[in-house]
């Protein structure tokens, strides 16, 4: 086979390979969604974050508005400090509350923002006051069992 024919084929192959990788990066991965927009950083303290991970989405009214950038543990309050970046397009009042929610029963966990009524907007470095921790399934179940047991006790006492 002639050299120029080989060059064309190899060129096509390399182009196709890079197109495949680009497809993975843009369409499959999230390269397009976070590298372009400017963001501002907000922190929130939670008593329990459950299974929240770095890069988990921040959603408000179901729309992804940012991503978790860092999770640390506060040695003084014994709480988790979650830092997240919110897209600069989206603005929230200062008294916005944050909840850790789960998408579906077994889905991944994300931070849900619920806007408050304050006139002052959140800015870079602010901290959210109102937070609600993740629902930990084990706690929920044990709570339920305790309640059940307590009810039974009361019932058996009444019956006596």
């Amino acid at each position, binding site marked *: 086979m002639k*050299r120029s024919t080989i060059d064309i084929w190899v060129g096509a192959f390399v182009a*196709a390979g890079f197109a495949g*990788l680009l497809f*993975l*990066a843009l369409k*499959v991965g*999230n390269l397009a969604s976070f590298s372009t927009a400017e963001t501002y950083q907000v922190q929130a303290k939670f008593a329990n974050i459950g299974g929240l991970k770095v890069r988990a989405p921040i959603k408000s009214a179901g729309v992804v508005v940012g991503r978790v950038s860092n999770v640390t543990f506060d040695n003084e309050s014994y709480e988790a400090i979650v830092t997240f970046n919110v897209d600069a397009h989206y603005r929230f009042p200062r008294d916005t509350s944050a909840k850790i929610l789960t998408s579906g029963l077994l889905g*991944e966990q994300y931070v849900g923002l619920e806007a408050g009524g304050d006139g002052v907007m959140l800015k870079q470095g602010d901290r959210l006051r109102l937070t609600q921790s993740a629902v930990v399934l084990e706690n929920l179940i044990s709570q339920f069992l305790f309640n059940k047991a307590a009810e039974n006790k009361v019932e058996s006492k009444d019956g006596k």
Partner: protein
Amino acid sequence: MVERSGVLAGLLQGLERLGRGAGAKIWRLGFAARFFAYMLLHSGTALRRFHLTIREIYFAGVLSMVIILVSGLFVGMVLALQGYETLQRYGSSEALGVLVALSLVRELGPVIAGLLFASRAGSAITAEIGLMKATEQIAAMEMMAVDPIARVVAPRFWAGVISMPLLAGLFSAMGIFGGYLVGVKLIGVEEGAFWSQMQASVDVREDILNGVIKSLVFGVAVTWIAVFEGYDAPPTAEGVSGATTRTVVTSSLAILALDFVLTALMFTGGNGK
């Protein structure tokens, strides 16, 4: 007493044979490592006269493309079928995109593409170099004062290293397309959820880049084994056929073992945070 000493002697003999076998294996490994270092040091020709390498990319990469694309498509389609079956029991069939994409990008893409590459291109490289040796073409080249490792071996090695990540990328992309066809077009998973969930969970650095690194490592391992087996093959018909078989077996095992090591390094440490 006589019997016992017989058993003992047999045992000792067996141990001795084992030791000798292990010694030969280690010697060969050392030789392969030296060969690798020599090849890297003498890669100047392959990179300076890049058309030599381009020619080999044609044979290793372009000619492997069809099998890679077709296999990728089918693997993706099967993943979607099987994944849907399991996910819908938990009512989370919209996570199908995540399942297909993560399995392909992290594991199946690099590994299956590597295995196919080993049997399609690796065996061809070994057979070609082995036959060049058997027909004295390698010797003729040396006699013409041309280093066959620089002229014949190194271009094939670099071609394999360049082709492998591209093939793995094509495999994953094609597989995700296959998963999309079956999941969205055939089964009817909601298209928006399929893509958005995928994009939300697949990380460019954590998943895709690590997949590319894996395929690069596999590319180095497979082509190294292939060129070494070819160059080391006894110059006979059985020698070349044996070396070709060894290339496929050794490089397949190497891919699986390396995959385990790399997965352990990449995904257990990084993801816990």
